[in-house]
């Protein structure tokens, strides 16, 4: 029972993180806070990827001194690394957008970032 609960913990964390992220994206007016929400969402998805890749007593396929022949193909771990790199690029770009918008508009409140309309 407790092991099952423990194994479910990562997925519960993912759900909580996703809800927090959606809340920030939908209800926050401050652009920086919205970007924090986006970053949270990235973390949630990355955690989800790592969690589905967990195999109990699994061994990484590093071929020196392996204790057994059964090894786990680290596909999701590779995916997560790629996703982290993409996430860093996205965050950096969007934060620089936020900086430019603050310089030009004097605000990061999305209610006031409305030059494009119609």
């Amino acid at each position: 029972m407790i092991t099952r609960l423990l194994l479910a913990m990562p997925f519960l964390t993912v759900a909580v993180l996703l809800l927090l992220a959606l809340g920030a994206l939908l209800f926050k007016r401050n652009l920086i806070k919205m970007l924090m929400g986006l970053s949270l969402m990235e973390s949630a998805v990355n955690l989800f990827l790592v969690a589905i890749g967990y195999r109990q007593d699994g061994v990484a396929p590093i071929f020196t001194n392996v204790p057994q022949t059964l090894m786990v193909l680290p596909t999701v771990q590779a995916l997560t690394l790629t996703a982290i790199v993409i996430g860093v690029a996205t965050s950096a770009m969007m934060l620089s957008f936020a900086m430019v918008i603050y310089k030009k508009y004097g605000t990061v409140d999305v209610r006031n970032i409305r030059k494009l309309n119609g």
Partner: protein
Amino acid sequence: MMDSLALHLPALLVAIPLFTAFLIPLAGRAGDTARSALVLLGAALTSLAGLALAARVFARGTVLYVFGAAAPHAAIPMDSGGIPIRIIFQVDALGALMVVIASLSSLAIALYSLAAESRQSGKDGFYSMLFLLVTGVLGMVSTGDLFNFFVFLEISSLAGAALVAYRIDKGEAVEGGLKYALLSTVGALSVLMAIGILFAQYNALNIATVASRLRFGSLDMIALVLLAVPLAMKCGAVPMHFWTPDTYTTAPSSITALLVVSSQASLYGLFRILFTLYGDLLRFNWAVFGWFLVILGALSAFVGVTMAIPQKDVKRLMAYHAVSQTGYMLLGVGVGLAVFADAGALAAYGKTAMAGGLFHIINHAMYKGLLFLTAGAVFYRTGTRNLNRLGGLGHAMPWTMVFFMIGALAIAGIPPFNGFASKLLIYESVFRFSPFLAILAMVVSILTLASFVKVFHSMFMGPPRAEFAGVREVPAPMIAGMAILAAFVILAGLVPQVFVDRMIAPAVNALVDRAGYIAAILGGH
């Protein structure tokens, strides 16, 4: 030598623009001429690789490329343990059609940009990003791997957003770019989540392998929604079209034309997901998803055009028309999907409707690209996009006017231009499915024509205006870029049957041939 080159075409297709992108800052240090030469060379080689690959696919069927394997075309090499663990590019006729679109457009756009951006600063970054966007689009339409699709989707989104925001323009462009980046990122994360859900169940990322193992449980349906909604959003379908006008308006015109192509790569992704990944004839409720596309398409077509009519900004107007035209593609393919389980109806009009929808994708990329480029040409000389302030440019910019006319008549579906050819296929087949939808599609066409007559009138007609006295025709590279697209618009309008038989019909067959797509990787039917 030629043979081994041909063998590696799918890899070259992505490698050439990728390397060009990172060589550009180096060439830029040697001066403007060197950079321009590299841009031209890179664009020409990319197009050449794309067209050669497409020709090969149309002649011999699906092309596979397994990265890192000893023999690139062996789907499951000996050392793979019986499952495709490597990244595989799988270009079937549908992918090849998209490769043709991206190749032709990117060449025209690169040519056009050379002149249109010549007076701007920061050209190294601009062209690097442009080639990254092309890389992303070409990768999306040729990959056979779900995660790889996500990576290319992100490459095209990030490069696209950066390009939209590149000319800051008092912050407005950054606002457009931010909107695009925010929606794309949330969409891409949703796609990644869906890929995770599928991988957790089926231990595979290869599209054909996942398709063959799919059990259509409730988790798979969640994954379907997480995949389909963001892709429908990225192709700009109503009610998720709100980003298109802002993003298309604020981007430099050449980039807008490329964003149209990138949104169509998302449309390709949507079709690939619905038809190949989830398209199991026995276990899948085709009619529901067909109607989903049909309603999305009819709404997009009608709402897009009604929003377009009152616009004062020429690019904003065209952006709403892009939403409207995407509706035709969804409508055509949706009708095909809705009658898919009914073999009689499928043969009678379903396949024609899909052919119309797919033909409209390539036609739209060409004439809408052309229209955005002409709008950019007018902006390049006059510095305004406001229709109320423009006028009388026909005297000074005859070439731009002719290209605009060609594009406008094509988008309104007037013969002998390509828009007519694909719309006719859609009208006649959709009429047999539902007369109401066919009439709606025709009404949308009439409204489109009315809207573009107004634009034509307010931009080019009337006496020459004093404030535009110094306006001249745009430089030759911009005319050449527009001419490439215009030539296709006319050619596909004059001999549509050639295009339908050689490219569109194979693409339709590839779209519906789920077993064939799977068999290309796993073997056997």
